[in-house]
């Protein structure tokens, strides 16, 4: 489910990067009520995902993303977090008129970010392009998804992947290897249900631990870095129910070789939703699903953003039947993605019963948006 609302909002306010107007921010409720979904396919039941085809775009669905996050370390020990996300947004179902190659019913939105943990700073950038005339797009073989100069490129096989993206402040030039972990199908064989209503679901698979190396730039300084990344792929048309307001999403790589993914959906009252889900990947690559009642989440500390919004940046995460009692803390409080859509996405460190690192995403806490009740 993660980040779906972000995309839905984006399509309604797209290209408003430098504005901070309240009108530009819409509630999830409004987004869900949008008629844009008309004519798009929906995820009703599990289907056999086929590769490499499913690495490419699924324009029959309204939204889709290629979502990379990772924790990296420079040769000199300096710690970094990074995010690279390309969203595909269907504005309208069906093919555009053929009178110009620039006609598009689909657009791409890109977000990149670098967290300089030891330097105490977070930098991010946003970009848009229409999915036409070669400005932005995705294909499965050879794999490539791109938005202007930002691109993620593979070969006939998906890996190794080359990532290239830069803005004035930051630059990413990374190479991602397959590693030892297989592709993980989330939910029921890749169908991730977000509510009781049929069709409110997505297709979702992940690569949970990708050895990563390359170069990272902040301003004019360049660092040789290495570490691990996490790739999420998800596409859907409609996922959230009307009473769902946001979520807290965890992607943790533990030092014992396991990975844990869990998203907690929150209702408009801020209470956890019964359709919160997750998965635990064992060191040998096998995985099991985690239901809402298997996981207990307790916020430990909040960070207050400039606009007054409060983000829970430290958590206690317990999975009793796996013997996990983890403390997840943001490596940097301010890892706010303040663009067309505002959310918190940042590198975290895991302590407690097990050690590790990962990424945390907090959505639906933005005070500026109407119809928002933060916990």
């Amino acid at each position: 489910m993660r980040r779906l609302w972000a995309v839905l909002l984006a399509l309604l306010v797209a290209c408003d990067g430098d504005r901070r107007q309240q009108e530009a921010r819409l509630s999830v409720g409004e987004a869900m009520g949008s008629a844009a979904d008309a004519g798009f396919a929906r995820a009703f039941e599990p289907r056999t995902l086929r590769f490499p085809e499913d690495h490419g775009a699924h324009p029959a669905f309204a939204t889709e993303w290629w979502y990379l996050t990772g924790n990296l370390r420079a040769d000199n020990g300096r710690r970094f977090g990074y995010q690279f996300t390309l969203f595909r947004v269907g504005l309208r179902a069906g093919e555009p008129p053929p009178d110009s190659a620039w006609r598009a019913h689909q657009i791409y939105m890109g977000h990149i970010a670098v967290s300089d943990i030891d330097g105490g700073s977070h930098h991010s950038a946003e970009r848009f392009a229409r999915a036409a005339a070669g400005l932005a797009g995705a294909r499965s073989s050879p794999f490539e998804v791109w938005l202007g100069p930002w691109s993620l490129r593979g070969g006939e096989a998906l890996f190794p992947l080359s990532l290239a993206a830069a803005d004035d402040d930051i630059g990413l030039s990374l190479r991602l290897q397959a590693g030892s972990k297989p592709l993980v199908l989330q939910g029921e064989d890749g169908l991730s249900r977000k509510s009781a209503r049929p069709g409110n679901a997505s297709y979702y698979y992940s690569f949970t631990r990708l050895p990563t190396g390359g170069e990272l730039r902040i301003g004019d300084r360049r660092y040789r870095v290495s570490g691990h990344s996490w790739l999420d792929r998800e596409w859907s048309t409609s996922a959230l129910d009307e009473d769902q307001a946001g979520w807290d999403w965890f992607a943790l790589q533990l030092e014992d070789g396991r990975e844990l993914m869990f998203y907690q959906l929150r209702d408009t009252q801020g209470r956890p939703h019964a359709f919160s889900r997750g998965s635990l990947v064992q060191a040998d690559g096998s995985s099991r699903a985690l239901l809402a009642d298997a996981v207990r989440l307790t916020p430990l500390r909040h960070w207050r953003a400039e606009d007054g919004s409060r983000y829970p940046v430290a958590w206690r995460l317990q999975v009793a039947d796996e013997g996990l009692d983890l403390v997840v803390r943001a490596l940097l409080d301010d890892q706010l993605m303040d663009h067309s859509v505002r959310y918190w996405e940042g590198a975290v460190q895991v302590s407690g019963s097990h050690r590790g690192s990962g990424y945390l995403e907090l959505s639906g806490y933005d005070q500026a948006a109407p119809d928002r009740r933060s916990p």
Partner: protein
Amino acid sequence: MKAFSPLLLRAGLRYLSRHRWQALLALAGIALGVAVVLAVELANSGARAAFELSAEQLRGKATHRLVAAGAPLADEVYVRLQREPGAPPMAPVVSGWVRVGGQLARYRLVGFDLFAEAPFRAQLAGLSAGGGFVRDWLTQADALVLAEATAAALGVAQGDTLDVIHQGRTAPLSVLRVESGSAAAGQDLLLVDIATAQSILGLDGRLSHVDLILSDDAEQWVRQRLPPGVQLLTVAEQAQGVTRLSAAFELNLTAMSLLALLVGAFLIFNAMSFSMVQRRTLFGRLRAIGVTPRELFGLIMLEAVVVALLGTLLGVLLGVWLAEGLTRLVAATVSELYYNVSVTAVHVELPALLLAVALGLLATLLATLFPALQAARTPALTSMSRAALEQSVRRTIPLWAVLGVMLLLGGLSLALLLPGGLIASFAGLFMLMVGAALITPLVIRVLHAVLARCGLPGLWRMGVRDLDRHLSRLAVAVAALMVALSASVGVGVMVDSMRGAVHTWLGDLLSADLYVAADAFAEGETLPADVVVAVAALPLVAEFSRYRERELPLAGRSVEVIGARLAPPSRQGFDLIDSGATVWDDFDAGAVLVSEPLAYHLGLAPGASVELPASGGVARLGVAAVFRDYASEHGRIFVDEARFRQLWPGQPVHTLALFAADGEVAELRRAVSEAAGRFGLAVTHARAILEESMAVFERTFRVTDVLRLLSLTVAFIGVLSALMALQLERGKEYAVLRALGLTRAQIGALIASESLLMGLLAAAAALPTGLLMAWVLIESVQRRAFGWTMPFNVDGGLLLQTLLIGLLAAALAAVYPAWRGAQRDPAPQLRED
């Protein structure tokens, strides 16, 4: 300057209050002169600014532009560049001219990519605020955004449909949003998505240009990646020639403000010198009671300063008011000739204001300076005698005339003989006019001497003699009228000559029966290849010519290169000014015909050669002949079609010229329309093109006509005020004449005859001056500005008309003074002394 005694100030004030009419006339003269100059300047700068604003709104913050020489740019160039890491901000633009259903003006349709705009045109990127806009903008293929003012002018609101016509095809657009406030998305622009613009303008896969914001490093980055045929220009380079008003129109406006300046200066000079001359009696009395020359000079100059300030202030107010109407007129002309500009309000620009104020103050003070010096210098008794004054004025007349002749000859040689640019031409023109004005008093004297010997009837003889007697006061008025009339003749002859030349040239050039184009009066349109083949193969076509066009850079100019398959009758249409014996053989062998303006500016003659960028590198083409051409001041080059297609392959046909067999033009026209099928064609008779071209010509010069009329009006007021003042002053003289037995009618006739004589003299002097001026305008100004020549075409009607206007102005100016002079009762006037 020391303080004046109260007596002196009182004397000055008393005089002015007793001669309210004279004070008012002086004020009116100054005010009118200032007003005309200011109004013309404001109207010109207003139209120019509106035109440039539109261009600037389009450019936004861009520093550079990517263009392909003479053709639209392939959009892959942009797509490839923007995908490279490190690419600077870039924004693709597709734009072109369209007409809107039911409107005469042309509008610029601009297609852009919303996502690329933020760094360039904040107002465009700002469009995206608010829910749902981006989706509608991208997914509604007919979405249109306009500024509030444009929407109001077109009478559309959000949700309405607007029909846009391009290449004769109509595309309905739907108004998605009307932008208000200062964020207005560019006035007079029709804003659409880049895909919509490509579709409507027939530019699929092409861009008009790409805007860039480049630092020095980024400029290098781009230059290293430029594909062949693509140029990186700075915005300043690009702006030249493309976004400016056409040079012809600009020149027209400049000439007109110059004329206004001249007439305005004369008017002020007239008013002030008159007011001074009239008061010599008072000055004489003041000197007689012991006022020192210094004090007198100071008094006169103080008064002049006060009058100058008041008159200038009035003139500025009047000028701003006048400018509103004039600006609308100029803007309307610009709209019809170029594209719609809306001048909503007159902005009083500082340079124009300074010019007008400086003119008002300086001309007034200068006009006062000589009489004031004279009044101060002359001994008490003589300054009381008018005869003495006239005597001294008459003595200086030959001096003025000598100076005038020198100025006139100097001006002529500056404009015609010496090398120099356009500014030298205008300076020469100005000197010529001032010189002619200075000679005018002598001309009056000479003509007076001639007329005096002609044995005129009594009253007329008196009128002639009066004119001579009052030369000091009337000469300036006559000179002002002369300047206005001669400018009218000069500009009139130039326009006539140009009209005649253009008409002949077009008539020769348009020798075919029918012309086929995608849209006869739009730019950059081409015909589909199958239509060209089908039409040319029609059995009714006896002969045909075919034209392909492309704009290319040549020696810093943008030159139109035309690849032509020329049928024999089309060849005859060229008026070859300079050619070798084997022109057409050379042409068929690949040599080119260059237009006169191009030949003039680059110094080309048969045997020379030009170098043009071509697909295989630089092409060197020999010049076969120079032909007369008024189509473009930048220059045109005709190349044989076969050679053209080798050098610039892939350029489609723009125009077909068809010669009908056996004169069956109507039949042919029907057949052509059928052969074209669904493709929208404009099939036009040569006559219709000629008429439309001449209509455009007339529109270009409509402003000229209005300004001519305006300057004549001002000169007319000058004559009127001079006569009025003279009549008021001579009240006593008329009383004596009445007492001697002249009837009221005879007094009226006397005044009228004097006035008519003034008009006649002014017109007589204006004719040769005007012809000289036309000569300079044609041979120097036109040649240096545009590089073309034209036969001198003097229309007798125009000369006669000028003569009549001069007389009419004088007659009208005499009506009131003559009536008043006749009405006055002589007794009180006589009793005064």
